[in-house]
């Protein structure tokens, strides 16, 4: 989906935050919106229900400035978590260039993480993409809850559950506190731009 305007030397690409319901996708975007004011280009749009659940998705446009003479623009999206919105989830994933998989560190959400990753794999496959090939970064969120004595999955266990085969970069995070949010996004942008570069050789 990345849109190239070679004349104007512009690139626009799409990164999707994926993960089970309530794992902290929207919170990631909110933090980015607050903390990267210079790069944010416009409003964060959230389509919510009255209870604050994401109904369709959140959307945040960003500009990364010039990279090798190209103006790079990025659109960040999140997907809704609940099972009944599976068609919206798929729609948001359409034309995706890079994915951040946000996993919930709560022990009680272990299975939900695995199901969601599997769901991601299937939806990508329907668009002819492989989870093994797409630029992908893992985030193990809600690490801060350990302080309150809430049972969390050890990071090693999460690696085994979710990342043993994928072997993608992974980061612990606390989206409410903002830790790990920036590095997750940067790594995903790096991988995404690298893969687009390979695909289109735009930086020659």
């Amino acid at each position, binding site marked *: 989906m990345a849109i190239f305007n070679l004349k104007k030397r512009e690139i626009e690409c799409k990164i999707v935050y994926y993960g089970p319901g309530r794992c902290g996708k929207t919170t990631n975007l909110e933090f980015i919106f607050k903390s990267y004011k210079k790069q944010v280009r416009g409003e964060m749009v959230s389509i919510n229900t*009255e209870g604050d659940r994401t109904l369709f998705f959140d959307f945040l446009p960003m500009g990364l400035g010039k990279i090798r003479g190209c103006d790079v623009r990025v659109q960040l999206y999140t997907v809704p978590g609940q099972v*009944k919105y599976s068609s919206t989830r798929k729609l948001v994933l359409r034309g995706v260039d890079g994915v951040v998989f946000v996993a919930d560190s*709560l022990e009680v959400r272990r299975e939900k993480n695995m199901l969601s990753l599997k769901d991601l794999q299937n939806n990508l496959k329907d668009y002819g993409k492989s989870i093994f090939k797409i630029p992908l970064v893992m985030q193990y969120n809600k690490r801060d809850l350990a302080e*309150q004595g809430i049972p969390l999955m050890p990071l090693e266990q999460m690696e085994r559950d979710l990342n*043993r085969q994928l072997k993608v970069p992974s980061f612990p995070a606390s989206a409410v506190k903002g830790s790990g949010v920036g590095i997750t996004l940067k790594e995903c942008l790096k991988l995404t731009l690298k893969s687009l570069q390979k695909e289109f050789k735009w930086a020659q």
Partner: protein
Amino acid sequence: MSDFKQQLKALLSEAEIYKGQGLVDEAKAKYQSAATLIRSKENIKNRDSLLSAIETKINQLQKERSAANQAVQSPRLSSKAQNLIKNLFLAADDEGKDDAALEAGIVLAKLGQFDSAITEFNKLIQKDNLRVAAAKNILQCHLAKSSEQEAIDQYQRWMSDDGFPPKQLETIRQYLEEILQQKGVESRLPAPKLEPQDRPAADLELELEKDDEEEFIDITSIAITFESGPHKGKTVEFEVNFQSGNMLSLIISKDEADLLEGLDDGMTLKEIQFFSPIAIFNGSAVVVSKTQIKSGPKQGDYCLDIRITST
């Protein structure tokens, strides 16, 4: 603090946090464990008031959940949000086009135009997500033309020309074999070799319960018990020629046209048995339309469309 108190406190604070994060089921489970823990102790002073406090918490959770579910229906959308959605759906349009082409093929087939229907379906064979549906319909077209052999040959051509992933081909083989068996046609269709990579990778193996609102099982035939009309009380079995979701199309020979007398548009058929490869189930359906085929090999025959309303 006693062991009991500590355990109880931990459970309750977990429940509160899950609740705060909107994890309703998880919160409820923790409240329930807390209640079980309290019940297991007989000599606590304020046992009853503790239990009723927990019950209140659980009820509250349930109330919040149903409120949230109701709110879902009518979100207010800014014009910006509306534009975003429009763009997403516009982008999805070429995909909608394929679904539309599949529907178009089914309509042609229902009208007895099997060859042009096959042409339409063949265009969709290249599309990974529609290949299986298109292939099933192509086979049904051959079968409707009463050429079982052509259906078998077609399967074998697919088998040898490599365009089908083995997993999809296997789905189609099972589908065809089931129909042939019902027709009493002896045949052993060669099965494709399934590659190990067709199976999901080991630690991504968990099966997701699919949101199968739109997925219907293949129904191969149905039995209608007439409740009124000239055939009252009689049960007649019909073959299903085409299926699109919950809409079934039956082609009924002009020689059996009298059976259609009791079946008018809009009529509810309360007693139907549906036969599928997986199971037989009872249900009801509505007659959507009854049309006579004007041209082609089935000229003069009827196409009866019924929609499954409940099973």
